[in-house]
């Protein structure tokens, strides 16, 4: 039984001006210890997808349909208080902006103590405190700074702390939503390596959400490419790198600088992502696609299998290929 199994998930934002289908018919599964990359432009619904896994889609978003199973339990229908126990213990989340992710009026230690004692009420304050110290040590932060406030730490430090909070109760799955976007390049690598090592050490599965395909390619076993709320391609890392199927994926790849092919010309993707309130008919990518056909404009392609563990949502690969297994 996979750790996480998502089938035909749909997330909608019901705004006063109309409904936005932020995530449409997304299905995948994730085993223990695996790494999954979610890549796409901003607004492609990847963060929404991530948040929906811990059922924290911000107002006015709701999970419109589908199932999210963690250890075989469907959490969509789970009552709030049970869901609450799930968060932190089973699934942890690392947010994009470490500057804004800690309670400004609480000391760092307090965050840990609070977290631990919420989920393990019989742990004493002192114990929790000690545990917090060891975690900080592992993260390379002097334990004596445990009584400082967040505003006394640098961005990288804060992100470390956030990660520390995420893994403090060693969950089975960590979702890192653009963990490094807000940080400068040198720190980025450090943080990602830290995540990597911790993942190995604690045997966690990791979902890495990023707009930067290169990072994803570097570090993920499986990759999902998202566009305008649809998952347009699904493949394993190397497969996607060598044989990108969807035009969008190809464009993404071309936009990555590559040391090996020095004579490669970098191309940006023309146009801009669609207005999610009234997306184009048919394939949502056609207005920006260079292979647009008649059918693309009218009919929405299905997700079809074009090889081992390789799904794509495009008419280039047949009117309607065999639905994936």
């Amino acid at each position, binding site marked *: 039984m996979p750790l996480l199994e998502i089938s035909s998930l749909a997330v909608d934002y019901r705004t006063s001006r109309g409904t936005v289908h932020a995530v449409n018919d997304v299905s995948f599964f994730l085993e223990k210890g695996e790494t999954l990359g979610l890549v796409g432009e901003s607004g492609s619904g990847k963060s929404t997808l991530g*948040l929906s896994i*811990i059922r*924290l889609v*911000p*107002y006015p978003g709701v999970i419109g349909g589908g199932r999210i199973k963690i250890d075989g339990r469907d959490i969509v229908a789970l009552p*709030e208080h049970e869901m*609450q*126990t*799930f*968060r*932190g*213990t089973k699934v*942890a*989340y690392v*947010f*994009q*902006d470490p500057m*804004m*992710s*800690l*309670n*400004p*009026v*609480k000391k760092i230690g307090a965050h840990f103590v*609070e*977290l631990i004692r*919420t*989920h393990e009420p019989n742990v004493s304050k002192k114990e929790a405190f000690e545990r917090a110290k060891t975690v900080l040590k592992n993260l390379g932060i002097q334990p004596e700074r445990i009584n400082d*406030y967040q*505003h*006394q730490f640098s961005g990288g430090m804060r992100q470390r702390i*956030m990660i520390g*909070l*995420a893994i403090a109760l060693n969950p089975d799955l960590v979702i890192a939503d653009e963990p490094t976007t807000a940080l400068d390049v040198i720190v980025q690598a450090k943080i990602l390596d830290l995540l990597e090592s911790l993942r190995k050490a604690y045997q966690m599965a990791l979902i890495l959400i990023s707009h930067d395909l290169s990072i994803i390619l570097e570090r993920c076993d499986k990759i999902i490419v998202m566009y305008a709320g649809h998952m347009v391609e699904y493949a394993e890392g190397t497969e996607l790198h060598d044989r990108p199927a969807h035009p969008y994926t190809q464009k993404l790849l071309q936009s990555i600088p590559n040391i090996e092919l020095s004579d490669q010309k970098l191309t940006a993707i023309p146009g801009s992502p669609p207005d999610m309130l009234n997306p184009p008919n048919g394939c949502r990518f056609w207005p920006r696609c260079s292979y647009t056909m008649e059918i693309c404009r009218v009919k929405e392609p299905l997700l079809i299998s074009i090889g081992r563990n390789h799904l794509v949502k495009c008419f280039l690969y047949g009117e309607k290929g065999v639905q994936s297994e």
Partner: protein
Amino acid sequence: MGLRVYIITRTLLTIPTLLLLLTMVFLVMRVLPGDPVDLHFERKGTPEQIAQMRQILGLDKPIWNQYVDYLWGIVDIGYLLQHGYPNLGKSMQVTSQDVGRQIFSVFPATLELAIYSMIIASVIGILLGTVSSKSYNSLLDHVIRGFGTVTYAIPVFFLGILFQLIFGVYLHWLPVSLRINPNVEFPAHVTGLFTIDSILEGNIVKLFESLKTLLLPSLTLGIILSGIFIRLTRMNMLETLRLDFITAARARGLRESTVTYGYALRNAFLPILTMMGLQFAMLLGGAVLTETTFEWPGLGSYIVGRINYRDYTAIQGAVVMFGLFVTLVSLVVDILYAYFDPRIRL
């Protein structure tokens, strides 16, 4: 350490504000058409009368001296220590009593009323505000907002009269006037706050009676004020609840109550506090009408009573007193802010 420095500087900063405020009161009272004595005599007083009154009020001196005297009277600590009240001039009424004494004798009543209605307002306001922000755009939210808006639109004295009608006339539950049931002796004067005094006196009956009498006025004023507090709390909570660290906290699986109170409210509290501090001025404004409605013998009733005598010095003194009170409160609020907010403290 940092805190102390902050407090000192902040306190020093109030001095110019205060000076300005006093100056403005002075100007406002002077700028107005016609001078107080003429007004007092309805512009028909005999020259001797006017001259005498002017002399009593020190209006015969040039305006600059008047200004200096006026300021000096307020800051004259020696006089304050000697008499126990500042020198705010003589009342224009026949008794020609010291305005300072009169004002200081009525002030505790207003203070008491202000404190209790502030408490009521904050409790209602913060509570309902939080609730409605948590249930954003739900029916409950709309109901609470509606309540807030309506209370804002009710004339305070109208609500007061309704309460008198309901709790006093129909139900006979609560007394509708004065500070304590007439057949109860006043508690021994220590602070002038009847509730405190009766506690100090250790007299349950008096405490009970004074609370009983206090209930209606403070409830009236509190409810009126709570409308604004609800709005403030709601706004700040909505803004705070939208911040990442709230989602982060939820993602860590913290209890909703912890998130709401430990995180959101705790962070939204400081702006709320300061804004409430600003509303204090409005509270005092409302207190004037509440006092007249419930015959609460405080600064408000005093100023209204003096108006009926065109007692210009008394009015000026009362206005000054109100001003000092407000400035003091805002000072305290800011210091509290500094105390509670680690970012300022360090």
